[in-house]
């Protein structure tokens, strides 16, 4: 879990050997003077999702699979996200990508592939129930969070 805001939970994931999770790595890489406005918009959008919940209609049902992206700026800085439930999002890494296809931008492909693999592994574990949604309480506020075996071995790790 990266952060919980009320009922809403933001998840990211941590690769072995890295001192930051993927989302913090994205922020460390792209939160530069020339990208401040883009990152500000993304931060505001993530907080807006926390307030309003995740409206599935915002995501293309037949888009690039389960992984979608928050985009900002004319150069299309993108942050890869997976809508998990009405109250949760997984945020990963990102890149700049305009009209170029994914395969031609290695940085994007790497971040996107990792999200796709994570989504596949997560769905598998939700099906075999080694990962499940657990209802918790914070005072009078109930919220659901992912629990169980959240350690994954993906790709060439």
């Amino acid at each position, binding site marked *: 879990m*990266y*952060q919980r805001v009320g009922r809403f939970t*933001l998840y990211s994931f941590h690769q072995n050997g890295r001192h930051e999770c993927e*989302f*913090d790595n994205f*922020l*460390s890489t792209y*939160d530069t003077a020339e990208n401040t*406005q883009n*990152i*500000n*918009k*993304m*931060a*505001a*959008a*993530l*907080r*807006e*999702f926390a307030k*309003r919940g995740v*409206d599935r*209609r*915002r*995501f*293309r049902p037949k*888009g690039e699979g389960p992984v*979608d*992206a*928050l*985009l*900002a700026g004319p150069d299309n800085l993108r942050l890869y996200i997976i809508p998990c439930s009405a109250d949760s999002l997984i945020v990963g890494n990102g890149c700049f990508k305009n009209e170029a296809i994914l395969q031609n931008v290695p940085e994007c492909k790497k971040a996107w592939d990792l999200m796709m693999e994570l989504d596949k592994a997560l769905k598998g574990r939700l099906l075999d129930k080694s990962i499940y949604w657990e209802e918790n309480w914070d005072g009078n506020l109930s919220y659901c969070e992912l629990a169980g075996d959240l350690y994954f071995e993906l790709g060439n790790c």
Partner: protein
Amino acid sequence: MTTKLDLIYERVPAHTKLMVSKSFDISERILDILEEKGWTQKDLAEKLSKKESEISKWMKGTHNFTLETISKIEIALGQTILDTSNSRKQEDVENGIMVFKNVRADSLIGGNKHIPIISVDDSPIILYKMKKEINF
């Protein structure tokens, strides 16, 4: 625990937060209309001669919609997205306003001189219908 995102969010200017919130409102309105009509984002993209990916981008809440884009979307959907009509102002005109008049000041020798600096016809001030005159 304070996260990196918290630190960034703290510095986000109020106008950016408001812009993103409005962008969410606009995209939510578009999504509601699409649902009402049984249209997909692809249908809207076709109507606007845009790529579906462009419409998808608009729906994420970070897009800064221009009035031109909103107008084009409204025409394509045949419905209003942004309701900033002058209906409120019109309502005020129809209801009229009350005029408070200082009778004593007006009765003083010479009276109050209200000299228009520009002619009424050129005035940018909207003329209101007088509802009631209250003397004091």
